[in-house]
């Protein structure tokens, strides 16, 4: 790729040319596909980026017992940290109860957050299978999947969260 020198950029600037935004400073380097793949952990709402792997709520109960229960409580309630179980009707309570079941709009982003940020003290240490399994377990506790349903990159995006339509763009 041809990159104009800084001199030519400054000449364009001096002329007040509108095309300056299209100029390159020639600083920085191209990132390789492998380099991008290693860091691109983003999983959007449609779940296109979900990894290989799978798990069921039954598998996830064991993961939860060891890695999650201490903070989130027995079966997702009563812990010292975020409660995981609920339904959107609880958003009208005072105070409102915001949980995975009551508030989260997508199951795919639950997978994303769990994979990169949980467990709190050891983020990023769960395998893809473990994340699918523990995601399935939390969704099972919320009554959203069956105990033996297999969640993977195909089935997880099919789970419709109860509060999916609960968010509106800031009208201010």
């Amino acid at each position, binding site marked *: *790729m041809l990159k104009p020198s800084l001199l030519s950029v400054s000449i364009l600037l001096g002329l007040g040319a509108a095309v300056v*935004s*299209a100029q*390159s*400073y020639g*600083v*920085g*380097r*191209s*990132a390789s*596909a492998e*380099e*991008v793949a290693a*860091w*691109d*952990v*983003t*999983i*959007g*709402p449609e779940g296109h980026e979900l990894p290989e792997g799978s798990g069921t709520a039954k598998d996830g109960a064991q993961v939860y017992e060891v890695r999650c229960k201490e903070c989130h409580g027995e079966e997702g309630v009563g812990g*010292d*940290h975020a409660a995981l179980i609920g339904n*959107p*009707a609880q*958003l*009208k309570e*005072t*105070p*409102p109860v*915001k949980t*995975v079941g009551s*508030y*989260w*709009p*997508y199951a795919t*982003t639950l997978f*994303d*957050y769990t994979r*990169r*940020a949980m467990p*709190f003290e050891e*983020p*990023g240490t769960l395998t893809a299978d473990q994340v699918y399994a523990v995601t399935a377990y939390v969704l099972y506790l919320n009554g959203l999947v069956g105990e033996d349903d297999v969640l993977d990159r195909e089935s997880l995006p099919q789970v419709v969260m109860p509060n999916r339509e*609960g*968010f*509106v*763009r*800031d*009208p*201010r």
Partner: protein
Amino acid sequence: MKPRDATRRSFLGTGALAGAAWTACTAPEAEAPAEPDQPSSLGTPVSRYGQRSPYEKAARGVRESQTPEAASSRTPLDQTYGIITPSALHFERHHAGVPEVDPATHKLLIHGLVDRPMAFSVDDIKRLPSVSRVHFVECSGNSGGEWSPAGAPTVALSHGLASCSEWTGVPLRILLEEAGIQPEAKWILAEGADACLMQRSATLEKALEEGLVAYGQNGEAIRPEQGYPMRLILPGWEGNTNVKWLRRIKLTAGPQYVKDETSKYTELMEDGTAWIFTFEMDAKSVITAPSGGHTIDGPGFLEISGLAWSGRGKITQAEVSTDAGQTWAEAELQTPVYSKAFTRFRLPWEWDGSETVLLSRCRDESGYLQPGRAELIEERGRKSAYHCNRIKAWRIAADGSVTNAEA
């Protein structure tokens, strides 16, 4: 270093966290000086990195937490001057602790809907054209306690999740254009290098207009707590979008609905729906002196001073009431007034020693006027935990003690 004269002088007390003492006192009149007119010995020699006076004790307010790595500390706004928050007193809100990032190996990856994915080292970033801008950063949970009528007892507790710095860095537009923005790109996802890889989505429009990849803060390198070696600054937008330890930006067609922008920083309404992507911080002001926890030592002259800011541009007006809202006086704004930055306001006042309530309100260049609590609740209800910008009131008792009062 004798007092210039016998006029009233005021100074800040030291016990910020234990409840600051703010005292106006009368200097002794024409008495023999307690100290010699000239020091009789030399002071300390030059040093490599300066320290504040041992008499100064201002500190961030830190509350006990089971998870101090995912907690916040608050700026003692009543112990800062002007509009710049000392970097060491800038508020903190972390989600997985402060990472130690080596600038020699750190890189910023830009990918997604771009013509060519790019990686920039810290040195690369510093070669590019830079700008310096004064902007506040405010956690959208700041003043969350003010949704309740009681409110918080000190200004650090009520408003201390906001700070203001001069940020130096590269306009994000330059970096994105180096990678080549594809027409389908409408949003960005920014990611930090902390243990949880904190992420937020933001509009590409905002990134191009005002986004800054900052490496400088108040004349030196950004502090680790503020994102060393580089952070995103999206002026006027809720603090969480100003991703610290910035390491990755992905251009996308739509927002990613990550945890913090769905389960956390959304505004729940009374009907059970929630506003999402409530990026802009509404105009807000607060009187910092005198404020809760201070004690005024007797009637007489007292300058009232405070801070105002808005995510929608410049503050155009700050008003102060010294009679519980019956009348309002225009406060003087410190100039220059920067856009999306703390603006210091000041009003001279003669306290007659009787009980009263002080309030402040501000207006920004969009015409928006800071609301009272009732107006804010009428618009938002009582279920939202964030974006509380209501008028704050301080009660002054006849004995000079200053406490929180309902606005």
